[in-house]
């Protein structure tokens, strides 16, 4: 049959019981104790591959719960080693499902949490750690015994060896110990990270470090295990360290249970890839645990955006979301109105204002929570959601603005208390606009990461990005000025300053954005000039025009009037006259370079910003050189081919000039 048409319903056995009756999952695995240990290790390894494959987007039923031993929790009780391992696997799966379903990051990834009908909880799974500890203790004693024969002679009845072959005893003990310990620490990591208000993060880091150590040992055990294995498969796809097929797995069994399996056989990650997956997951988790729980929202956003750059998988993203939003508060600790007043740059005293309980602030808090959640989702989903929530941010801004104007009109004689509220309200209004533009810029930038733009779209995308960034700069600047003013007024009371805003300097955050604006504008003009002078390929579509492409790309921004009065015509007009010769005279790239250079000292303590500045400098420098080159030879050489690459920066392109 064509494998594409395999509905996944063809199975060897009709039920778990039938499989067991036919000897698919014997207990013990073998009456030869060495073989029994070997087979147990194979099951552990294969389960790791299954678990990683599940985390990467396949169903639990087709991966971890393809293990017959897991499906019948009671059957394994006579085999302490296998029983404790199965028990901790079930408990871990349950904990991971709880994290992901609570976090609600799984919109497109909902297959992950589906577990109907699977025995996620076996009797005694809640004691899985003590069972695991007991087994670990026994193996530790066996290891000690085989290393010192004297001890073994002293109490032979106490320490029965793990298996029959004395020469292999130490290696098998060690191979088992690292596998058991990894499970123990991993379970602890999950429990610690689930503690409220990030209280378990420090301890979680210790367990993460132990997990990574054990994973190394597990990886190293493969030399011994594969050397002592018969009937092994040496291919890279093997799901066990030994290279053997494990006993007791049948992925087709669950297709008749209620847990859903997609209508197709799946390919498991290899054992080596599964180890790599867990290393990556643990590093991502360590990154979360080392986060300092920034109380400034801007810092939180920045952390999440930075975290997403490593493309963390679902489990890590869910745990981050859990940390950020608990009980409707930031980190389960800071109420949102307090977070917002702080983010808007208002003084500490502002957060005690009774009006902060008003409906707009409550709604705004909800929007912030929603935004935090969206920022933790996979980039594809994130971009779509960011586009949609822009509308909500715009609406709340308009509602607040209306309320503000109404209040101003009503309060002709402003009493002191109301005046203070007006100030707070005004600050928050500007902050809301600032966030709206920040979300918009993130929406546009994510399009590059997701490869949603084709080269013929670059010009309009950079144009829109520059327009949004300029607005963002404006709002940040305005807020900084207002904060400065508030600060000065306060100072004035104390008689410290005479002149408001006289010694106000442009904040580095503003210059940083200005630098990006220059780069974006440079790219717009360069692309437009190349288009206008027919130096880059254009092929008008037979069915529509640039107008339709513009409308489609920016529909959500346009619908939310971000920014006001920006249309296709504004784009068309601002790029229509661009020419290479003009650009050489007024070169935006040079401005970007200059600002970037000056800014470095302001961010000497911020390695992330320094990297970004260096990248901006590189792109600006390359494009500046390219522009001059095109200006000099472009007209004379029709074979000149110009393309854009993202080798220096993830979303600011670098021109590549070639003779074809």
């Amino acid at each position: 049959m064509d494998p594409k048409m395999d509905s996944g319903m063809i199975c060897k056995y009709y039920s778990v019981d039938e499989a067991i009756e036919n000897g698919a999952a014997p207990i013990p695995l073998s009456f030869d104790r060495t073989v029994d240990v070997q087979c147990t290790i194979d099951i552990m390894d294969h389960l790791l591959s299954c678990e990683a494959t599940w985390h990467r987007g396949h169903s639990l039923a087709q991966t971890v719960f393809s293990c017959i031993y897991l499906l019948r929790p009671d059957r394994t009780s006579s085999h302490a080693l296998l029983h404790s391992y199965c028990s901790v696997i079930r408990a871990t799966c349950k904990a991971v499902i709880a994290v992901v379903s609570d976090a609600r990051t799984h919109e497109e990834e909902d297959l992950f949490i589906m577990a109907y009908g699977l025995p996620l909880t076996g009797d005694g799974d809640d004691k899985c750690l003590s069972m695991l500890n007991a087994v670990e203790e026994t193996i530790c004693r066996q290891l000690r015994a085989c290393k010192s024969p004297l001890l073994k002679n002293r109490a032979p009845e106490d320490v029965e060896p793990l298996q029959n072959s004395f020469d292999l005893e130490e290696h098998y003990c060690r191979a088992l110990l690292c596998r058991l310990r990894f499970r123990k620490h991993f379970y602890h990591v999950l429990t610690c990270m689930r503690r409220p208000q990030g209280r378990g993060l420090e301890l979680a880091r210790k367990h993460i470090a132990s997990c990574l150590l054990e994973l190394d040992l597990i990886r190293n055990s493969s030399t011994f295990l594969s050397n002592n294995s018969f009937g092994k498969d040496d291919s890279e796809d093997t799901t066990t360290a030994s290279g053997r097929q494990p006993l007791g797995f049948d992925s087709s069994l669950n297709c008749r249970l209620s847990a859903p399996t997609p209508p197709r056989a799946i390919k498991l990650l290899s054992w080596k890839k599964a180890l790599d997956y867990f290393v990556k997951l643990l590093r991502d988790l360590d990154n979360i645990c080392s986060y300092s729980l920034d109380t400034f929202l801007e810092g939180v956003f920045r952390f999440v955006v930075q975290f997403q750059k490593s493309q963390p998988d679902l489990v890590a993203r869910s745990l981050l979301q859990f940390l950020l939003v608990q009980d409707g508060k930031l980190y389960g600790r800071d109420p949102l109105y307090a977070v917002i007043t702080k983010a808007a740059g208002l003084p500490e005293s502002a957060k005690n204002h009774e009006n902060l309980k008003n409906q707009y602030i409550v709604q705004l808090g909800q929007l912030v929570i929603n935004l935090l959640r969206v920022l933790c989702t996979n980039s594809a989903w994130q971009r779509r959601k960011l586009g949609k929530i822009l509308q909500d941010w715009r609406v709340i801004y308009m509602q607040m603005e209306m309320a503000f104007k109404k209040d101003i009109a009503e309060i002709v004689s402003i009493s002191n208390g109301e005046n203070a509220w007006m100030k707070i309200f005004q600050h928050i209004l500007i902050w809301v606009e600032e966030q709206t533009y920040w979300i918009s810029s993130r929406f546009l930038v994510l399009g590059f990461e997701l490869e949603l733009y084709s080269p013929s779209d670059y010009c309009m995308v950079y144009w829109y990005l520059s327009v949004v960034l300029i607005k963002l700069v404006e709002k940040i600047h305005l807020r900084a000025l207002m904060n400065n003013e508030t600060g000065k007024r306060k100072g004035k009371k104390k008689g410290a300053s005479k002149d408001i805003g006289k010694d106000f300097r442009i904040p580095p955050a503003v210059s940083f954005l200005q630098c990006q604006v220059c780069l974006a504008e440079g790219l717009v003009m360069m692309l437009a000039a190349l288009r206008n002078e027919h130096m880059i390929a254009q092929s008008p579509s037979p069915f529509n025009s640039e107008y339709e492409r513009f409308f489609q790309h920016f529909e959500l921004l346009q619908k939310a009037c971000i920014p006001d009065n920006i249309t296709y015509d504004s784009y068309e007009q601002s790029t229509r006259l661009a020419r290479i010769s003009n650009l050489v005279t007024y070169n935006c790239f040079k401005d970007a370079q200059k600002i970037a250079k000056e800014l470095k000292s302001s961010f000497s303590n911020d390695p992330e910003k320094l990297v970004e500045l260096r990248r901006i400098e590189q792109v600006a420098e390359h494009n500046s050189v390219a522009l001059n080159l095109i200006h000099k030879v472009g007209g004379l050489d029709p074979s000149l081919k110009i393309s854009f690459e993202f080798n220096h920066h993830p979303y600011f392109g670098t021109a590549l000039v070639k003779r074809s």
Partner: protein
Amino acid sequence: MESKLDGVVEEEETRKVQFDASEIEYVSYGGEHHLPLIMNLVDQELSEPYSIFTYRYFVYLWPQLSFLAFHRGKCVGTVVCKMGEHRGTFRGYIAMLVVIKPYRGEGIASELVTRSIKVMMESGCDEVTLEAEVTNKGALALYGRLGFIRAKRLFHYYLNGVDAFRLKLLFPRMESHPSLPLMANAADNQRDNDGL
């Protein structure tokens, strides 16, 4: 109902057939006798599995949107589509597009899909959509040339775990852009935009 549109991938040049573009005959779906030809081609070339009911759903309801390409009596390519209401818009949808490997790179896929899109436009569609695997450079380039944009990326969309792009082509609305001429043949003399 989605499809990996790898029918237009031009990488594997297996046993390239020499032919003149004028030798290719394009035929609108003509009845049950065409069905096995379409099924055979799609099963051969696309990654998603479809049953006979899926094919019938498309070709019985929208026969005017399905086309086949023949070379000397042999079916070498096909396109299967539908159209209907979608959230307040009238939307065309390209379900399957296939050209067999020896015939790729000669504009057969473009011609097939252009014919379907024209019928959609004449039938009053506001837009056309489809999904394509993010790795399918050939299909992405083809649809890019026709004016489609990549509207969304769909995470782990296909059964094989690959992401998809949702591609969209918006037709001009005369009332919103009255000065716009329909540039049906303007593309011919332009340079290819893939290289940028």
